[in-house]
């Protein structure tokens, strides 16, 4: 049984009297560091967003304000604090923050996790908090021993008086340290002084995940709760014409039938009873918004939209003129499908709305969004809404959406009961906020020497931002829809990018690496085509365009070197290269593949990756994230697509949505991390975009076929081989 904890209690526990507490406060003027006493005074004015607490028993607790969805924040964020604090890593624990203004992301001003930003946005704030704590502990020790501060040094949770060899652990110093003023600008370590960061330390969340102690959203139980399941329209925009609530209520265990905005909710004592109730409803659904919508009509609409005028997202030089005088011109189109997140844990949320407050347990990437929709749904003030972020059974952008919260809260409000709402896999697959399908037309021009002089890129794509963050759409341009295009690193003298916003009833959302998940493919595939048209090596061709981009050049050269680019490979195999810049990081990959000309399957033998993400925290987590991104990228490249039929989503489960299985993974995946003092980038997403183009380019190298549409399924490969 969960113990209920109010926000005030959480705060009081976190700041419990004994022990040293440091809050780092993000303000418009930079970070401010406060002690617990100071914070209480200034609580109204400032919102401390992260704490470290050193307890008398030497345990260091770091409160993590980001959602753990597999990317390792429960480990990496505490590592940052612990290093500056000179803590003993074995004594460091983490605690998940509730949803509250004081835990907002200092850059976004909201509490949410995404965009591969957790470390980038928290790095300096957390370092300062750790460093301040260390300085206070050093001072406390010097005062205790009545010795000069300079004679004391910290290491692994202990202060040592160098001349006499006396030591005191941090726990023994907390009371004195807590009474000292917090240094306003503590000295930070030099990189060479790091003792915890840059080390491949084991993750703090793994033992609980292995021993089944980790609690995901679906593992929530609340006294007196009912299970809810929602009968949903089978097609977009359909309304219920009729349903038999009385029949559902006759089913054993069924307690309520509640029509809400998104469907008809059946609440019962047990989950199976709720599903039986759903069946008993015998709901008749209306026709929906677009009964004719299917794969074919959607594709046709994309092609049609290509002939309409869009918004110019980038204009450099004069692309039309350059193309007109080009010695060689190439044109190609690329069609990419809608994709599902298919998190292994389907959407779920447990909510208990009472008159005086509301408590929510949810695997979410968007705590601020959860509070906002709950406020709207219930009329309760934010301080009356307590959100428990559980472990997330996968995120990938899916759990930025708050629909499941809205539903659980609405049902709980109507029934007055705690509600555990579970989505079936079919509901999850058919009601996703999908990675948008998209259609690109690229025209490239070469001069007589084979240099790329012009690139014209027109993309038809739904706008994720228009739905998720409308304020991000400026002058009609969705910056994610044109990611990698308007900010293209290649020094093409004439560049033209046009964006046509595509509107369809299909909901779209953030999917791991967002716009780069498709534009990384089209740009790097077509760059390869241009290299071949120029008769040049694809790596050399790229490097020639990257003379003013040292970080891109370095990541490409590194991966080429590690992969043995240019060296012979087994006969029949092919090698392809691609790079992508996204979320502040540079990733290049080389794929080695073979194509089975009989059955059309593509086998990826080896993927070599290099990443430059600037200062690193945990190299083991970086390697795991890149490996995972490569596999997710390969899954999308080879098998994933959402199919549409009769006005809705046809794909319903893993029989038709083909996620990559162990038999399909590359035999070898190698990850090389470039140590770079350059600006810090993210790690969760940037490993994905280069995979599909590296594989497609390798397929061309192996079999001479250009696959410009995804996924590269065996039937597509066979067709291309036949036409070649």
């Amino acid at each position, binding site marked *: 049984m969960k113990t209920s904890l109010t926000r005030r209690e959480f705060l009081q526990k976190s700041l419990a009297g004994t022990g040293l507490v440091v809050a780092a406060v993000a303000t418009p003027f930079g970070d401010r560091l406060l002690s617990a006493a100071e914070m209480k005074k200034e609580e109204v004015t400032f919102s401390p967003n992260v704490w470290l607490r050193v307890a008398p028993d030497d345990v260091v607790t770091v409160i993590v304000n980001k959602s753990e969805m597999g990317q390792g924040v429960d480990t990496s964020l505490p590592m940052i604090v612990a290093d500056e604090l000179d803590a003993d890593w074995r004594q460091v624990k983490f605690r998940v923050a509730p949803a509250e203004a004081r835990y907002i992301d200092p850059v976004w001003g909201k509490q949410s996790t995404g965009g591969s930003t957790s470390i980038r946005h928290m790095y300096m704030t957390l370092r300062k908090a750790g460093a301040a704590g260390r300085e206070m502990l050093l001072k406390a020790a010097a005062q205790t021993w009545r010795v000069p501060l300079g004679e004391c040094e910290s290491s692994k949770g202990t202060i040592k008086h160098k001349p006499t060899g006396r030591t005191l652990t941090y726990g023994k110093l907390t009371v004195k340290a807590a009474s000292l003023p917090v240094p306003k600008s503590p000295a930070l370590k030099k990189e060479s002084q790091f003792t915890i960061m840059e080390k491949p330390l084991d993750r703090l969340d793994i033992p609980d995940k292995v021993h089944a102690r980790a609690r*995901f959203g*679906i593992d929530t139980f609340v006294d007196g709760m009912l299970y809810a399941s929602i009968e949903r329209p089978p097609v977009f925009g359909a309304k219920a014409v009729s349903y038999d609530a009385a029949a559902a209520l006759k089913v054993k265990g069924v307690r309520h039938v509640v029509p809400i905005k998104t469907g008809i909710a059946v609440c019962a004592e047990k989950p*199976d009873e709720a599903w039986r109730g759903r069946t008993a409803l015998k709901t008749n659904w209306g026709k929906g918004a677009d009964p004719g919508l299917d794969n074919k009509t959607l594709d046709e609409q994309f092609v049609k939209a290509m002939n309409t005028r869009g918004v110019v997202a980038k204009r450099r030089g004069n692309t039309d003129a350059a193309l007109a005088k080009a010695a060689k011109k190439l044109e190609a189109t690329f069609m990419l499908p809608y994709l599902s997140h298919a998190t292994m*844990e389907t959407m779920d949320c447990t909510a208990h709305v009472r008159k005086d407050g509301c408590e929510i347990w949810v695997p979410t990437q968007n705590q601020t969004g959860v509070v906002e929709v709950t406020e709207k749904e219930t009329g309760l003030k934010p301080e009356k809404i307590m959100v428990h972020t559980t*472990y997330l059974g996968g995120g990938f952008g899916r759990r930025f959406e708050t629909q499941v919260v809205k539903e659980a809260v609405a049902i709980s409000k109507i029934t007055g009961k705690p509600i555990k709402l579970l989505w079936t896999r079919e509901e999850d697959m058919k009601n996703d906020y999908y990675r948008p399908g998209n259609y690109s037309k690229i025209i490239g021009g070469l001069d007589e020497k084979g240099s790329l002089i012009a690139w014209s890129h027109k993309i038809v794509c739904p706008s994720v931002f228009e739905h998720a963050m409308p304020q991000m759409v400026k002058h009609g341009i969705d910056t994610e829809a044109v990611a990698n295009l308007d900010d293209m690193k290649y020094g093409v003298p004439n560049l033209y990018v046009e964006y046509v916003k595509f509107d369809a009833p299909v909901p779209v959302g953030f999917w791991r690496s967002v716009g780069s998940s498709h534009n990384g493919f089209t740009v790097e595939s077509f760059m390869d085509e241009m290299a071949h048209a120029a008769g040049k090596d694809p790596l050399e061709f790229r490097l020639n365009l990257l003379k003013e981009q040292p970080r891109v050049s370095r990541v490409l050269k590194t991966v080429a070197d590690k992969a043995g680019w240019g060296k012979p490979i087994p006969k029949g195999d092919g090698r392809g290269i691609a790079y992508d810049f996204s979320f502040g990081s540079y990733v290049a990959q080389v794929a080695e593949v073979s194509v089975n000309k009989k059955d059309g399957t593509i086998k990826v033998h080896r993927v070599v990756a290099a990443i430059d993400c600037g200062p690193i925290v945990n190299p083991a987590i970086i390697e*795991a994230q890149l490996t995972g991104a490569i596999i997710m990228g390969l899954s999308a490249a080879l098998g994933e697509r959402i199919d549409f039929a009769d006005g809705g989503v046809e794909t319903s489960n*893993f029989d038709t949505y083909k996620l990559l*299985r162990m*038999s399909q993974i590359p035999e070898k995946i190698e990850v090389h991390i470039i140590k770079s003092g350059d600006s810090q980038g993210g790690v969760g997403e940037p490993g994905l975009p280069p995979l599909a183009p590296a594989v497609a380019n390798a397929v061309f190298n192996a079999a001479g076929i250009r696959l410009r549409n995804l996924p590269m399924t065996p039937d597509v490969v066979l067709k291309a081989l036949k036409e070649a």
Partner: protein
Amino acid sequence: MISLDINRKKYSVDVEPDVPLLWVIREYLRLTGTKFGCGIGLCGSCTVHVDGKARRSCQIPVGDAQGKKITTIEGLREDHPVKVAWIKEQVPQCGYCQSGQMMQAAALLEEEKDPSDEKIVEAMNGNLCRCGTYPFIKRAIKSAAKEGKGS
């Protein structure tokens, strides 16, 4: 009333016999390590042992599980070579599918003390992982096999 033997403990549950074993384990008995993923036996998140064999608990009507010995992830001892290897090789990312992966791996190692790569892939191919931990799982199974031999 349905009688069940789970992790060597006897349970008596008031439930219809056609309810999948998964939901009885998870939601009736609150042994939450066993996870729901697809409900059609294609992802392996709900894998448990039934009389020592890896089975998808979402595909077994609870009535059919009577009289059989069921083991869930909670019943796999903490020093089991698979659990030790999963920590050593730092397998989980989000962790949701990993109970099913570990149960599948443990059953494989019961049958095959030192499985080849092909055997590992054959046994594990029904277990999906969206985070892409497959290479880590492979390494962990090999590590567990080594440990198992040594003990």
